[in-house]
């Protein structure tokens, strides 16, 4: 059964050393839970970006909670590069496993299907493949002379995202953000923050049921208003570009990052 908990209880379910899957900015990254995760003192996270990372990833890296990032990119979009991520790469404080978007998604689909790998086109001749000893080129068993990359399943311990609403039964509306369903299918446990919890089952309306992640996959839900902020949330609110730019400027130094995060926690706690 889906548990309904407070944001700090939700964050406490993410353990040190866990492989944690998160969606991109603007596709349901639970930026609001980030301060709770940092405050929990969790360390040594292995982040899996589905398929790219943004503000939340940069904040977790800046706070020293991350040891490995598996991703096809980390960026603040229009606000530019991810400052804490760039610093961590230069200072060698994190391990990077560079991928390409469809490889991240393919690895998660393999986990969803319970198979060890799925073959994928592209990649051959790239330095991405060369620097990923965990990936193997195999021969297509159905054709001659056709090498293809076998992408191993990515099985996160836990995934976390933010959505507009959940119902009392633990069903969550994800709309057409297929990557949210994907990380939930692939992960052992799924943690969700939502703008609101509604009393009527989201599955009762056939017209919108297809965009709902059933409670079967949802381990725990916490209500967290504006939990995507300063990113936008589809159908709810626009991204706060000024705030993202403020973060981008502040996080250029470690001290600026710390100062920003103190104030960020304060602002969210009000």
């Amino acid at each position, binding site marked *: 059964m889906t548990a309904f908990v407070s944001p700090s209880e939700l964050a406490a379910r993410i353990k040190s050393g866990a492989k944690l899957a998160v969606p991109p900015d603007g596709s349901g990254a639970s930026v609001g839970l980030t301060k709770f995760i940092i405050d929990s003192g969790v360390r040594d996270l292995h982040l899996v970006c589905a398929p790219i990372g943004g503000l939340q990833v940069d904040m977790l890296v800046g706070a020293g909670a991350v040891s490995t990032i598996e991703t096809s990119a980390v960026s603040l979009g229009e606000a530019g590069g991810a400052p804490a991520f760039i610093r961590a790469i*230069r200072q060698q404080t994190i391990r990077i496993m560079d991928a*390409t978007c469809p490889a991240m998604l393919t690895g998660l689909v393999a986990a969803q299907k319970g198979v060890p790998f799925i073959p994928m086109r592209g990649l051959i001749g790239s*330095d*991405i493949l060369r620097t990923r000893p965990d990936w193997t080129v195999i021969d297509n068993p159905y054709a001659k002379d056709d090498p293809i990359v076998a992408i191993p399943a990515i099985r996160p311990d836990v995934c976390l995202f933010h959505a507009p609403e959940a119902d009392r039964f633990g069903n969550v509306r994800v709309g057409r953000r297929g990557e949210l369903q994907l990380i939930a299918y692939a992960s052992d446990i799924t943690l969700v923050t939502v703008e609101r919890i509604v009393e009527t089952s989201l599955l009762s309306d056939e017209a919108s049921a297809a965009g709902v992640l059933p409670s079967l996959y949802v381990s725990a839900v916490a209500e967290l208003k504006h939990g995507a902020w300063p990113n936008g949330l589809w159908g709810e609110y626009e991204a706060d570009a000024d705030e993202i730019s403020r973060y981008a400027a502040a996080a250029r130094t470690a001290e600026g990052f710390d100062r920003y995060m103190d104030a960020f926690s304060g602002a969210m706690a009000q």
Partner: protein
Amino acid sequence: MTEATARETLIFTIARLLDGVRHVAVGASSPIPAAGAMLLRALSEQRGGEPVRISILGSAEHNFFTQGASELFDCAAQGRIDAFFLGGGQIDGAGNINLVGSGDYPNSEVRWPGSFGSAFLYYVVPRVILFREEHSPRVLVEKVDFISAPGTSPPGVYRVGGPHALLTGAALFSFEGDKGRFRLDSVHPGHTAEEIRASTGFAFAEAPQIKPTPQPDQATLALLRGRILDELAETYPQFAEVLHADATGMAA
């Protein structure tokens, strides 16, 4: 007689490079490629040609996908996307692109966001246009420090897509797939072939006659400053204002 601005020349050139495509995908923060695709769509409509579909990733209004991020890649894998744009912190003379960083990997001196979908889309989208406004030896290097995706693949490696052209703020190159190198085709107004040779870090072939990059005629320019600007403003309001200010400054 009104002249096109530098950005309008790029937009018009992209529309020319896209001629004949049915479906073009554009990245979320690529206003010039998006404008080029919108211009092609409008021109094709005027000619009574096949309708052109544009998917702008990350846009709510111009994105047809309902299955999330993976649908774009699945679509491309099936040959349903004819053209796409890639850039890079470094591009070399063999068409290799680097979106990861400069210096030794993995602890890059300068780290860029990462390869995004390039290590797949470059292989499967038939007409990939490399677009980077900065034309300098820092970007156009002899050899990239990290290959996010290679320009060509050896025989036996599945490859139906690849580079079609390289467009910078100064010049237009086509890509000679059989030779695995670029060829300088034209130079934008205000630039010279000599300048391009000096500011390109890799060796390239040259067309027998390097022409000035073609400019839009008056009707096309009017279309660009009217309908295209309006369409563009829906997704890229700030960029549409910049284009408008450019054109107004030109007229004054």
